[in-house]
């Protein structure tokens, strides 16, 4: 309120000074008034008094313990006319003594009161316009800062991830609108081992993005030395400390994995614990340590673990576990544990499963509160060593039955229960039919390759067509009620059958080929 009061007063004073100059050439008294400014603090009682005053207020006779009244008098103000708009005091008209040296008459006051009543709404409009302009400038500045933060962050995230033979390494990063400081990195070392990191910088925006970029570069640099994960974190901690802004720190989990043996060694600087998905469910792998950048000279204990074929390591940021449902309930670590333990049959793998569950929990239209980062390292098994059978089929109508019979022969030695073997046969027939009709577009010269493999605790039938570069389109789930009502086509059962007849369906594609993998678990998983 101080600002508008000052602004308003100056304008009124200048106008009075101009009038005075016209009638009183020396203008001595008013030049003095023009030079003065009066601060009216928001808690000065004059404001409450003017808010409820019935009209212009004569300062000479006003008995009010107010520093502002005193200052106004000293500045030569004799009469204060409140400007009220929608019941709110939005300014004042301040007048010096009349030039005739007589007091303000009743007519003068009435005229001023009427003038104030007309001027107040116009002034209010001007104030609103000015406020909106200021807000727009603020918003633009914020958007620019966001864009810079996003640019920095995206530049420092890996564009491709190393994929050692038999392993599947995947990451998902989704920034919050305000852009937090999440990061991840996966690097293949010259000795064939895989170094990986996931981290989170406290704070948001450009400062967090800058610290994230610095931390990621320091981690890469330290990772090139002959240091274990604990040594890497200790070195980065010492380098960050002193340079990092106060009250800012970085949580980070750093690990080194040997993809040939499954040996894992990692250390943790205050980051969320990783999950290991096993046949029996999921375990949290525990390792603790102080976040980076808080105190120098810290040491970080290393934890060792040996992964087995078929197991998956999942790393995450707190944007996942601290996401909220509409009723403010938190997603939480126990829920993430259960999702990982349940395994994933989804096409998007474990990351897709976690994101689906997160979306289901937070509901539609959720405004993401923090960055979400997920990194998974899955040991698929030694694929090359366990191919049971391989054959190419021409893209002919009805060839799916020949492929189905051939797969049935190929898996005889696997001792599948008869019902599961029948399910696999139908799923194979549907997948081959899709490959012929959709992948190869019915072109009889294009082959459909079928490969039967045993991978760790899985029996996998991989069906490859030449429809590269595109995945199976996601279609609506077939609903028999809707189909009988005529609201859905009677067709569209193929993918549904495949998904319901095997334990998992995986899909991959490159520029020229598209592969669907039908997976049956052979470790005693519940048969479909």
């Amino acid at each position, binding site marked *: 309120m101080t600002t508008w009061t000052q602004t308003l007063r100056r304008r009124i004073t200048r106008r009075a000074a101009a009038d005075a100059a016209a009638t009183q050439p020396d203008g001595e008294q008013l030049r003095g008034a023009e030079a003065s400014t009066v601060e009216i603090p928001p808690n000065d009682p004059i404001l409450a008094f003017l808010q409820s005053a019935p009209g212009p207020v004569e300062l000479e006779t006003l008995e009010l313990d107010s520093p502002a009244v005193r200052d106004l008098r000293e500045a030569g103000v004799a009469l204060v006319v409140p400007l009220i708009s929608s019941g709110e005091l939005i300014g004042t008209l301040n007048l010096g003594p009349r030039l005739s040296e007589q007091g303000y008459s009743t007519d003068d006051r009435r005229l001023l009161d009427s003038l104030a009543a007309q001027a107040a709404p116009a002034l209010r409009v001007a104030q609103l316009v000015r406020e909106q302009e200021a807000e727009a400038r603020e918003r633009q500045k914020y958007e620019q800062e966001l864009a810079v933060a996003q640019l920095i962050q995206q530049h420092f995230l890996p564009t491709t991830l190393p994929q050692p033979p038999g392993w599947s390494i995947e990451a998902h990063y989704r920034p919050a609108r305000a852009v937090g400081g999440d990061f991840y990195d996966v690097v293949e070392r010259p000795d064939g081992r895989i170094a990986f990191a996931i981290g989170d910088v406290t704070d948001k925006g450009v400062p967090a993005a800058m610290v994230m970029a610095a931390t990621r570069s320091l981690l890469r640099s330290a990772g090139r030395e002959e240091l274990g994960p604990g040594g890497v974190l200790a070195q980065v901690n010492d380098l960050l400390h002193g340079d990092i802004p106060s009250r800012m720190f970085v949580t980070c989990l750093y690990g080194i994995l040997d993809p040939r043996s499954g040996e894992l060694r990692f250390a943790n600087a205050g980051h969320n614990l990783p999950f290991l998905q096993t046949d029996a469910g999921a375990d949290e792998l525990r390792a603790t340590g102080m976040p980076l950048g808080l105190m120098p000279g810290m040491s970080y204990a290393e934890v060792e673990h040996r992964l087995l074929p078929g197991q998956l390591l999942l790393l995450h940021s707190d944007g996942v576990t601290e996401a909220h449902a509409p009723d403010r309930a938190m997603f939480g670590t126990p829920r993430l544990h259960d999702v990982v333990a349940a395994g994933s049959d989804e096409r998007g793998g474990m990351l897709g499963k976690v994101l689906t569950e997160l979306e289901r929990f937070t509901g539609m239209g959720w405004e993401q509160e923090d960055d979400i980062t997920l990194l998974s390292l899955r040991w698929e098994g030694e694929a090359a060593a366990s191919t049971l059978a391989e054959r190419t089929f021409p893209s*002919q*109508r*009805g*060839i*799916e*039955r*020949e492929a189905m019979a051939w797969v049935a022969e190929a898996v005889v030695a696997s001792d599948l229960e008869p*019902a599961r073997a*029948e*399910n696999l046969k*139908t799923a194979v*027939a*549907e997948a081959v*039919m899709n490959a012929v009709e959709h992948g190869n577009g019915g072109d009889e010269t294009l082959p459909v390759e079928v490969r039967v493999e045993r991978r760790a605790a899985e029996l996998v039938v991989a069906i490859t067509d030449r429809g590269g570069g595109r995945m199976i389109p996601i279609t609506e789930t*077939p609903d*028999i009620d809707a*189909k*009988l009502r*005529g609201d859905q*086509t*009677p*067709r*569209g*059962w*193929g993918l*549904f*059958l495949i998904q*319901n007849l095997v334990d998992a369906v995986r899909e991959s594609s490159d520029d020229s080929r598209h592969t669907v993998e039908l997976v049956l678990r052979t470790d005693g998983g519940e048969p479909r």
Partner: protein
Amino acid sequence: MTDRFIAAPRAEAGTGIIDLVGVLDGDSAAALTEAYTVAAPEADRILLNFEPMTFMNSSGIALVVEILARARVEGRAVHAVGLSDHYRHIFEITRLSDFMTIHGDMASAVA
């Protein structure tokens, strides 16, 4: 590779029976529709006999859905007999079994 499909209509005790012989897939549409058209006017219920069927894929399921939708509009019940355990499982997961009575043998199906 084409396999012949035959849909043979016959009537028994007010039931229009359609024997499905061979491979029920997308190529079976005309034969199945024709068999239904012959069997339906003489019957207040339709019995699909899957006993002689050797294979059915998702296109075949779509044809069964079409027959079911048409019979419902005409006020006829649809029954099924001769389904193997595997296809009975498929009828359950697709919920076709919610809309047609499934019998274990022909005697109970026409009783």
